[in-house]
């Protein structure tokens, strides 16, 4: 049973460019959350998608946007990249009615480097 799949695993972009990261949730999961983990820091919540809608959002600017598709997969888009956007981006999926009870499965992340 495949867990959470993220692509690509590594990415290098130039300041000002745009990037799209992709996430396929674990089978049977319907909710996808995205986290940003800067070097030496804990993950920070970006937003969560459920039923193709953004359900919650953390303290991230509008340059960060997302989408969830009918098959529950998700994309994270970042526009006008800044050097400070360099980080490991983690996707986590959770099953129906988990209600935050720790059913998250995390992917291995996408390492984004902005130069």
């Amino acid at each position, binding site marked *: 049973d495949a867990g*959470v799949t993220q692509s690509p695993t590594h990415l290098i972009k130039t300041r000002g460019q745009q990037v799209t990261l992709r996430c396929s949730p674990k089978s049977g999961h319907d909710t996808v*959350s995205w*986290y940003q983990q800067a070097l*030496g*820091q*804990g*993950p*920070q*919540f970006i937003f*969560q998608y459920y039923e193709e809608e953004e*359900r*919650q959002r*953390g303290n991230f600017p509008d340059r960060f946007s997302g989408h969830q598709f009918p098959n529950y997969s998700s994309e994270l888009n970042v526009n006008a990249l800044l050097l400070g956007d360099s980080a490991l981006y*983690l996707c*986590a999926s959770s099953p129906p009615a988990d*209600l*935050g*009870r*720790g059913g*998250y499965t*995390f*992917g*291995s*992340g996408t390492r984004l480097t902005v130069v």
Partner: protein
Amino acid sequence: AQSVTQLDSQVPVFEEAPVELRCNYSSSVSVYLFWYVQYPNQGLQLLLKYLSGSTLVKGINGFEAEFNKSQTSFHLRKPSVHISDTAEYFCAVGSMNTGFQKLVFGTGTRLLVSP
């Protein structure tokens, strides 16, 4: 808003010795508490969680943690560590304020186990 403090950025310990990783949280409402482990170049794996009930929680790989509401702590312990326990450990909290959907993480504690 809730926050998580992991008091030790790094904990060196010898193999087969006991270890305690400290975590304090700040929240004015009911919380769920979690410990995750992150191995190099991997995502987060859930070690254990406290939702309600018994304050002593047992997890995978011989780890346990105790929820102390009066001290707002959730320290992680293992009576005898192995070399393979070397990893980054994150304490996280979900709170009623955000419908328990969003996790707030600490900055992590690197456990270094040496022979």
